[in-house]
Structure formats: structure tokens, C-alpha cells
């Protein structure tokens, strides 16, 4: 009888699942991020030279190029310049004055993008990696009208300077620099181009070599070395090479930051300035801020930063004789400071952002033109943490002698990118989330308490459970006054929204879990899955120095507590609700419930070999064959509840699933042969229980794999050959104890088994589907008890989406070359077709574009029907999924008003009819008497 109900239910599931219109934009959320903007590549620029409206352009640490609307912080357009996740050392973004294109340089590619809509105008590959890209601001009559040319410097075997036509991207001339010196940067004046190279002397010091080229012909005009003597030990001490200013200059310091040396490019002399020490703490870095326009005044600002304070000096360059003079100083202030340069006609303005105010000065004099106090940056930070500005970009509008309005974007030490207009926060982009490495979901402690209570009731005898429930309700009565107060509000909300959206009350559905993200910068950032628009907390946990990295591992074993640990380190626990560290420090223990009776095998990847230890002695090792490398290894999740241990067939017999908690899917590749090997291992004994080989695989394209319950799935791309064309394939395999119905296989009904002593092999059914595009990552929905059917989540990097494939659509038991029998139809199996088209309704992102997703994390909600999904990488995307529909919660389609209206109508009818009926009955009695 149960099976009939099950088959009836499964019939209901066959219609494909979809994102409902009323759920789109409502249960899902998306942050279109760029990543932390880099100082040199973030600026205001007018995309349309005839209009004054400007956009903020940035090329971020993640090599995402984008334009942000300064009014609301929304993304206008975005291009990912390094999709394969390679971190290039240098990246450049330049915008010529009055140009409607921005020119980027990342890796080996120089590209011009339309500033208004981000379309590619042209692109050019260079032989070596790019060292610098600049725009030739001053016209020499050789350009195509309206487009300024670009120059690029690339290193590699043949360091080259190239002049690129601004309109077409064609190379006008190129000059190969001789010698073994490393190219460093480019500068241009009105007649000449200066290539600055780093020459290493025998003593290990660095000398600057300048090669002067003719702008028009690209021929070498001159070459000289700057005798920096023995003071320049590394390139890190070169603080600036100004490029496109009226008088480009090079500035460097000695390693102790005691003197600043400035050379105006083109002059062979240099000037030194003593750096006055204002502070006990040593100077940490020196930065030069100079205007980026040829027709602005040749003034520049030098910013000195110590651990506790900062100050700055402003210098003027005399254009006639190349003399540099110190004009004035900006006083020392506590904390970190950020300076930005803006221009208005020829005038140059420096804006200083400190912890508590923004001030603007003109480069000509030290008089403050505008001062705006800052109370707060409006971002969430750890308790006691001082939010500091890291770098800023400003746009000033000047009326007379005062700055009438100022817009400043600031990257803060918390990783937020904020916009301030006249010192007031306008928007805030949580760019730190773009560098999320790992995430976990933590149930808030109050939600978990109810779950625990319910579990106690479920596991005790009926009388005790009843007593417990009465006690719980009595305890709940204490909250009655507060509930009564909020009741009117809740009723109103209930009318307007739905029960599922009522997030004011405590979260009984488990939708409001805390999502904790560990970022590459060593911070923990928490979001609320129920109201993801704001950051709940943001703390610095790793305190990484520049150049350091960490490998965080997050877990939430106890409700309300998140534990973070770096590789092989001790874990620190944090309160999931407010991010406060808890006092106890716990050692790292493997995830999941500890079964005392079971023996623990630990396995890890070491030098491309999978090694396992049992009781601290090596148990087994899986070494790939010669020439093979381990690509991926996916174990079955430690906590993977399965409701039914068998599959009920249409004729009510059972196919038993091969359910072993200790299995893992391994993918290895043999690059020389172009083959991919798939293994399913028993992680206790190391035995291979299933293997498969695919030949002709394009190994440059990612192979995604997943393992869950008793099935696995992987996708790969096969190379074009004589027999087959290039295509993407998805393979799904399901493991059974026996293919004979009602048979539990070799072990029969034994209740426990040892993976080391008994070797059982599952019977595996696999099916391959041709899919339309590459899958870069696979994930699967998880629910609390595993009753709900599964959805396979596939990240599609080419269409910037995530697709949720119902398991029924890829079931390996779909009948091949014949129509399904009646029994198979009852199971919901349809005839196998080799091509699996992604139904548009399967796309979880609907209209959104989700760029750069690296991983998808799923977590069960408290109600069985729902699984929470969180995708991260560059963008952040999250949603709730109900693969078997929301069978345990009222959806939005439930019409509360109609229900209440029906009840009310019935009540009214009863009231009207009751006296009539009463009178009739009385009348009848009289008549009978």
C-alpha cells in the first residue's frame, strides 16, 4: 500500500521542476561582484566624452573588469579577463582623456572595451607577459582621428615595446629591447617614449636603465642609466614611475626610507629629499600620487605611512628646468590614510581620507578647500576593530575656491568598497565576498533548540513525549506577552506576505541559517540566508601579512557555533550569530558524528597519492599509474542521510541500493594519452569497486564529479576524432547491491559489516548523456532526512548559470531503445535519449548572470522539502530549492485571502440561516402537535 502511494507520488514528480515566477527574485539573492579593486586600476571616467556623467571603472584583484554606477553602486557591465583563475602579477587599466574606450592589459592580452557597454573593440596578444600599458595622450597626428594610441611593454624572451593603433588594435611599430634587463614600466612625454628597465648589478643592487624611443618611428633615440648607487636594493623601493603626466618622473627610496630620490624622466640628474621621521614607528611604505593627465599641473604628493600614523608632502616640478621642489606638507594624522588625486582642468586636487574625515586640498597651496567629517564608513567590522581606508579614488567638482561636491570610493580594510558623497555613505559593495574560499552554514542556536526538543519528543515513549510537550508549551507561555504585542503586525504581514516569508518570528523552517564565508584575506564574513542583503558580521581571523596565504577549513558541528581552522592547525570557534570568538580552543577532529563502535580510517592526498591510515598505521595507498595524475576526489558526504535503502519498482519489488558510507569517486587523467580514468574506491579497504576509462578526453577542460547516496556523476569533454565530434558528456552511475529485485546481495540481511574483511562489489548501472555545454562543478541538493528526491546542480561557466537537473532526468535506469513498460512508467522512467537538453526551467539563476562560480555549497533546511544552495567564486548566489516541491510548507500560491473569505462567508451564512432554521423547526413541531 505504501508502494502505491510512493508510485503515485513519483508520478507527480515527473513533470519537470522549475523556478516559480513568484519565487524568482524573492527566495534567491545575488551579489554581482568584481573583487577587491586595485588602486592603480580604479578611477572615475566619462564613458561618453560629451556628457559629464561618469562611471567608476575598475580592474580587480580577480581580474574582473567592470564599470560601476556611482549613484547606486550597481554594476553597469563586467568582463572576466581571467576565467581560468590564473592570478597574473600585473594588470593594467587605462582610459584616455575624452575617450569612449578603456584599455586593459592582463597576462598576454591588451584589449580595448567600449566604456559605455563593455563590448570588446579590439584585442591584441603579446608574445611575452605584459609589464605595462599606457595611452599616448598627446596627439602627434599619426593616430586615427578620435582614438588615442596605446603603447605596451612586454617581457619574456624578447622584451618589446609596441605602439598599438587606438581604433583598430593593429601594431604600428615595435621595438625589441636588447640586453637581459627586465622591463619595468613605460612613460611617455609629448615627443618621446621612455622604457624603464631594471638592471641588476653584480653586487645585487638594482640600477634603472632608461631607453628613449621616438614616438612616431619607434627608433631608439637615446639610452642612459640612472646611477642609483648602492641604495636601491629591490624593485620594491621604487615608489613610482609617473607615466602620463606633464613631466613623468621616477621616485625611489632607500630600504630604510630615509631619503626620497626623484628623477624627472628625460633628465639625467636626480634630486634627493630627506624623509623627516614624525614618529617612533618606522615607515612601512611610501606612495606617490600624481595626476594622470598631460595637461594638468606637474605636482605630485608623496604619502608616508607608518604603523600608527601617516602624513604627506606635496612637490612641484618646474617644467622648464626639471627642478623638483617641496611645496608644502600635510600634517601627521593617526591611523591609515588614503590619498586620491583628481583634476579639474589643469588644477590638481588631493583628497585625503582618514578614519574620521575627508579633506581636499589644492596641489598649489595647503589651504583646505573642503572638509567633511566621517562618523562611520557604514560597514560591519569586528568588535574593537578600527576600519581603515586602504585606497581611494575621488571625483571633485569645484566652484570658485571651494570644492562644492566630492564623490569618493574607498576600499576599506574590511574588504568593503564604499562610496561616500560629501562624507555620507551612498552605497557599499561587499567585494570581500568575491574571494571566498570556503563556506559553511550554521543554524542559529535558537532554531536548533526547537529541533532538539522535537527530536527528544520523537524518540521517547508517547506518554513521556506528551509530558515533555506540555512542559515545552508551558515554557512557551512565558513569551506570550511579547507575542501578543507583535500580533497585529504579524497578522498584517501574514496577509501581505506568506507564511514562508514571515521571518520576523523565530525561524522554524531553518531558512535563516548563518552563512559563514572565509575569504582569501583572512576574514570571516557572515550572511543571513533569510535576509542576505546585509552582512551580519565580518571579522579578521587570520591577520595575514601581504604575501601570506591560508587554507581555511570551516565547520559547524554544534548549532550556533562556527569553527575555523587553517590547515592542520587548532580550530577557533566563533559564535555564529555575532561572530564573537568563543573561549575554548579545540583540536581539529574529523567532521561528522562519532560512532564509538566504529574504527576510524583517515585518508589524505599526499604527493598525488591517496594515503589512508588506520589506527595511525598506514592502511592503504592509491597511487595513480605512471603518467597519471589525480584530478579530483569526491567522497560521499559524511552526513548523507538516506530515507529508503531500496528503490521500489513499478511491480512493488525492491532494488536494493549499495549504501556504503565509505566510498569515494576518484578522477585521474593521463595527459599523454588523453584519457580520463574514473574509480569508485572503498575508502576503508582501498579496494576499487568500479572503474571506467574514457579515451580522447580534452583534459584542458575541467572534469566535474560528484558522489552522493548510491550514485555518482561526472562530466567531461571529449576531443573531436574521426568517429566523434567534440562534445560534452555527463555520465551518471548508480550502485546496487544486486540487479535482481528483492535480493540484498551477498551479505543478505546482516546488520553490520566490516569493509576490511568482506569484499562486496556493487552492480553498477551507468548511462551517458550528451550535454550542450561544459560543466565546471557539480553539486547535489541535501535535505534533512533524504526523503526528498535529489537535484543535480551543475555550474555552467559558458552561460554564467547554474542548472538544477532532477535526478529522474538522468536516471541510469531509463529504458534504452524501447518504450518504458507499464511498471517503468509507474516509476517515472522515460525512454532514454542520448541528448540531454537543459530545460530553461531548470536554470536556477533565471535572468541573473552568475559569473565565476567556483563551488556550490548545499545545506538542508529544517523542513524536509527544502535545501539551501549557496554558490560562490566571484559572484555570490543563493537560493532555496524544493526538488519534490514544497510539500510541507504553504507556498506563495496558497491564497490566504480566499481561505479567510470562505470561512467568513460560511460564518455569515450560518448566522443568517440559523434563526430561519430554528423557526422552521419550531413551526414544524407545532404543526405535528
Amino acid at each position: 500500500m505504501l508502494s502505491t502511494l510512493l508510485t503515485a507520488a513519483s508520478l507527480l514528480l515527473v513533470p519537470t521542476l522549475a523556478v516559480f515566477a513568484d519565487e524568482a527574485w524573492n527566495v534567491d539573492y545575488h551579489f554581482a561582484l568584481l573583487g577587491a579593486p586595485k588602486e592603480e586600476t580604479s578611477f572615475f571616467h566619462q564613458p561618453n566624452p560629451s556628457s559629464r556623467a561618469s562611471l567608476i571603472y575598475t580592474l580587480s584583484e580577480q581580474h574582473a573588469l567592470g564599470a560601476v554606477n556611482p549613484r547606486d553602486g550597481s554594476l553597469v557591465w563586467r568582463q572576466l579577463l581571467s576565467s581560468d583563475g590564473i592570478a597574473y602579477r600585473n594588470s593594467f587599466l587605462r582610459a584616455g582623456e575624452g575617450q569612449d574606450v578603456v584599455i586593459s592589459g592582463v597576462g598576454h592580452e591588451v584589449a580595448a572595451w567600449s566604456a559605455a557597454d563593455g563590448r570588446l573593440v579590439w584585442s591584441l596578444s603579446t608574445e611575452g607577459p605584459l609589464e605595462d600599458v599606457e595611452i599616448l595622450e598627446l596627439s602627434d597626428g599619426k593616430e586615427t582621428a578620435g582614438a588615442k594610441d596605446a603603447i605596451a611593454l612586454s617581457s619574456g624572451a624578447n622584451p618589446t615595446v609596441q605602439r598599438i593603433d587606438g581604433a583598430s588594435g593593429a601594431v604600428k611599430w615595435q621595438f625589441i629591447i636588447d640586453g637581459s634587463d627586465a622591463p619595468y614600466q613605460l612613460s611617455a612625454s609629448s615627443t618621446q617614449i621612455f622604457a624603464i628597465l631594471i638592471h641588476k648589478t653584480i653586487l645585487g643592487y638594482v640600477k634603472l636603465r632608461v631607453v628613449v624611443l621616438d614616438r612616431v618611428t619607434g627608433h631608439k633615440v637615446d639610452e642612459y642609466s640612472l646611477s642609483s648607487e648602492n641604495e636601491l636594493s629591490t624593485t620594491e623601493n621604487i615608489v613610482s614611475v609617473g607615466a602620463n603626466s606633464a613631466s613623468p618622473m621616477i621616485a625611489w627610496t632607500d630600504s630604510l626610507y630615509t631619503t626620497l630620490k626623484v628623477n624627472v624622466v628625460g633628465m639625467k640628474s636626480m634630486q634627493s629629499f630627506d624623509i623627516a621621521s614624525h614618529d617612533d614607528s618606522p615607515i612601512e611604505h611610501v606612495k606617490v600620487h600624481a595626476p594622470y593627465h598631460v595637461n594638468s599641473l606637474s605636482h605630485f604628493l608623496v604619502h608616508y605611512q607608518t604603523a600608527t600614523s601617516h602624513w604627506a608632502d606635496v612637490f612641484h616640478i618646474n617644467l622648464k628646468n626639471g627642478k623638483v621642489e617641496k611645496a608644502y606638507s600635510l600634517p601627521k594624522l593617526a591611523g591609515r590614510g588614503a590619498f586620491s588625486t583628481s583634476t579639474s582642468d589643469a588644477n590638481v586636487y588631493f583628497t585625503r581620507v582618514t578614519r574620521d574625515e575627508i579633506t581636499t586640498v589644492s596641489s598649489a597651496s595647503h589651504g583646505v578647500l573642503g572638509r567633511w567629517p566621517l562618523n562611520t564608513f557604514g560597514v560591519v567590522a569586528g568588535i574593537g576593530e578600527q576600519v581603515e581606508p586602504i585606497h581611494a579614488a575621488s571625483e571633485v567638482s569645484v566652484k570658485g575656491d571651494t570644492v562644492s561636491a566630492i564623490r569618493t570610493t574607498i576600499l576599506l580594510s574590511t574588504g568593503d568598497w564604499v562610496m561616500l558623497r560629501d562624507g555620507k555613505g551612498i552605497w557599499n559593495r561587499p567585494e570581500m565576498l568575491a574571494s571566498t574560499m570556503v563556506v559553511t552554514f550554521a543554524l542559529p542556536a535558537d532554531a536548533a533548540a526547537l529541533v532538539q526538543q522535537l527530536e527528544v519528543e520523537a524518540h521517547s515513549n508517547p506518554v513521556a513525549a506528551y509530558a515533555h510537550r506540555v512542559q515545552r508549551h508551558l515554557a512557551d507561555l512565558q513569551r506570550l506577552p511579547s507575542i501578543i504585542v507583535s500580533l497585529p503586525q504579524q497578522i498584517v504581514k501574514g496577509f501581505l506576505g506568506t507564511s514562508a516569508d514571515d521571518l520576523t518570528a523565530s525561524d522554524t523552517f531553518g531558512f535563516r541559517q548563518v552563512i559563514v564565508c572565509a575569504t582569501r584575506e583572512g576574514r570571516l564574513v557572515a550572511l543571513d540566508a533569510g535576509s542576505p542583503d546585509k552582512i551580519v558580521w565580518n571579522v579578521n581571523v587570520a591577520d595575514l601579512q601581504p604575501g601570506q596565504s591560508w587554507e581555511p577549513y570551516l565547520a559547524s558541528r554544534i548549532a550556533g557555533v562556527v569553527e575555523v581552522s587553517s590547515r592542520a592547525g587548532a580550530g577557533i570557534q566563533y559564535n555564529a550569530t555575532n561572530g564573537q570568538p568563543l573561549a575554548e580552543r579545540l583540536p581539529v577532529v574529523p567532521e561528522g558524528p562519532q560512532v564509538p563502535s566504529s574504527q576510524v580510517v583517515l585518508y589524505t592526498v599526499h604527493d598525488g597519492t591517496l594515503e589512508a591510515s588506520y589506527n595511525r598505521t598506514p592502511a592503504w595507498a592509491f597511487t595513480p599509474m605512471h603518467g597519471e595524475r589525480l584530478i579530483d576526489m569526491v567522497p560521499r558526504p559524511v552526513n548523507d542521510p538516506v530515507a529508503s535503502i531500496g528503490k521500489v519498482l513499478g511491480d512493488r519489488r525492491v532494488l536494493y541500493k549499495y549504501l556504503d558510507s565509505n566510498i569515494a569517486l576518484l578522477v585521474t587523467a593521463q595527459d599523454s594519452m588523453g584519457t580520463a580514468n574514473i574509480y569508485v574506491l572503498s575508502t576503508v579497504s582501498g579496494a576499487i569497486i568500479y572503474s571506467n576509462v574514457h579515451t580522447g578526453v580534452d583534459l584542458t577542460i575541467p572534469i566535474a564529479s560528484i558522489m552522493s547516496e548510491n550514485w555518482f556523476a561526472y562530466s567531461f569533454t571529449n576531443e573531436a576524432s574521426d568517429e566523434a565530434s567534440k562534445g560534452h558528456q555527463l555520465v551518471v552511475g548508480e550502485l546496487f547491491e544486486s540487479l535482481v529485485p528483492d535480493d540484498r546481495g551477498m551479505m543478505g540481511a546482516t546488520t553490520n559489516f566490516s569493509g576490511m574483511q568482506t569484499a562486496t562489489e556493487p552492480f553498477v548501472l551507468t548511462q551517458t548523456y550528451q550535454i550542450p555545454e561544459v560543466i565546471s562543478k557539480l553539486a547535489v541538493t541535501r535535505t534533512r532526512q533524504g526523503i526528498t528526491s535529489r537535484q543535480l546542480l551543475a555550474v555552467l561557466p559558458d552561460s554564467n548559470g547554474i542548472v538544477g537537473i532532477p535526478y529522474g532526468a538522468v536516471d541510469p535506469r531509463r529504458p534504452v531503445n524501447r518504450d518504458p513498460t507499464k511498471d517503468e512508467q509507474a516509476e517515472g522512467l522515460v525512454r532514454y535519449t542520448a541528448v540531454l537538453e537543459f530545460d530553461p526551467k531548470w536554470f536556477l539563476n533565471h535572468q541573473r548572470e552568475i559569473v565565476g562560480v567556483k563551488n556550490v555549497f548545499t545545506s538542508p533546511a529544517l523542513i524536509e522539502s527544502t535545501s539551501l544552495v549557496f554558490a560562490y567564486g566571484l559572484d555570490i548566489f543563493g537560493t532555496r530549492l524544493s526538488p519534490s516541491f514544497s510539500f510541507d510548507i504553504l507556498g506563495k500560491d496558497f491564497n490566504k485571502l480566499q481561505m479567510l473569505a470562505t470561512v467568513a462567508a460560511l460564518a455569515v451564512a450560518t448566522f443568517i440561516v440559523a434563526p430561519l432554521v430554528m423557526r422552521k423547526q419550531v413551526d414544524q413541531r407545532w404543526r405535528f402537535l
Partner: protein
Amino acid sequence: MDTLKLKKAWELAIAPAKQLPMNAIGMYMTGNSLQIFSIMMVFMLFKTPITAILTMQPTFARFEPGDESKRGSFWLTKIVFIAMNCLALALGIWKVNGMGLLPTTRSDWLAWETAREPLERAYPGPGL
């Protein structure tokens, strides 16, 4: 008089069997799907014979022969009556089985079967 009573009692005993073909046709026509009509018919199919058996004594009391010698065959009518009602019940059970409501297959007991407990557990170490 007793002979007449006995004859009437026999008629009563055979009566459920006369309804069997009609019931069988009715059951066949309603199909094996779970619908309100078929459920009601199956319910009636069970209710009628059971109430008939339970109220057998009052039903047959009218035909109780006074003669001791006829007692034996009167008992026989009662037994035949029970048997006929059991036939009707059997028809009901056949129908319920056809509807898949009898827990006769492995899948009906699947919920009470548990997965095998592994004696060892393998965990990915740090970094995996």
C-alpha cells in the same frame, strides 16, 4: 412448517452467493485505481458480509425449527451462510489486493529494513 422454514433458511444462506457475480462485475468495472467510488464500494463489500455474519443469530432466529431432527440441517444452513459471506469477503480481499493495498510484497516492508552499519568509518583528513 419446519420444512418450509428450512427451505427459507436455505434461501437466506445462498443469497450472498447470488450477489457475488454482480459484485465481481462491479469490482472489475471500477478498476484498481484509488478513487472515492472504488473505495466506497470496497468498504461496502467488506461491511455487508461482516455485519451479516455478526447479525446471523437474529436473522436465522425466525427459521429456528422446533423439531430436534431438523436442527442438524439448520446448522448447515448457518455454516453455508458464513461460507457464502466469506466468499464475498474473499472477493473484497482480491479487490484490495488488486488495488495494491495488501502488504504482500517486499517494498511494503522496506521501511522496516535498515541499512547495514559499517564497522569502520573513513574520514577525509585535513586539506580534503
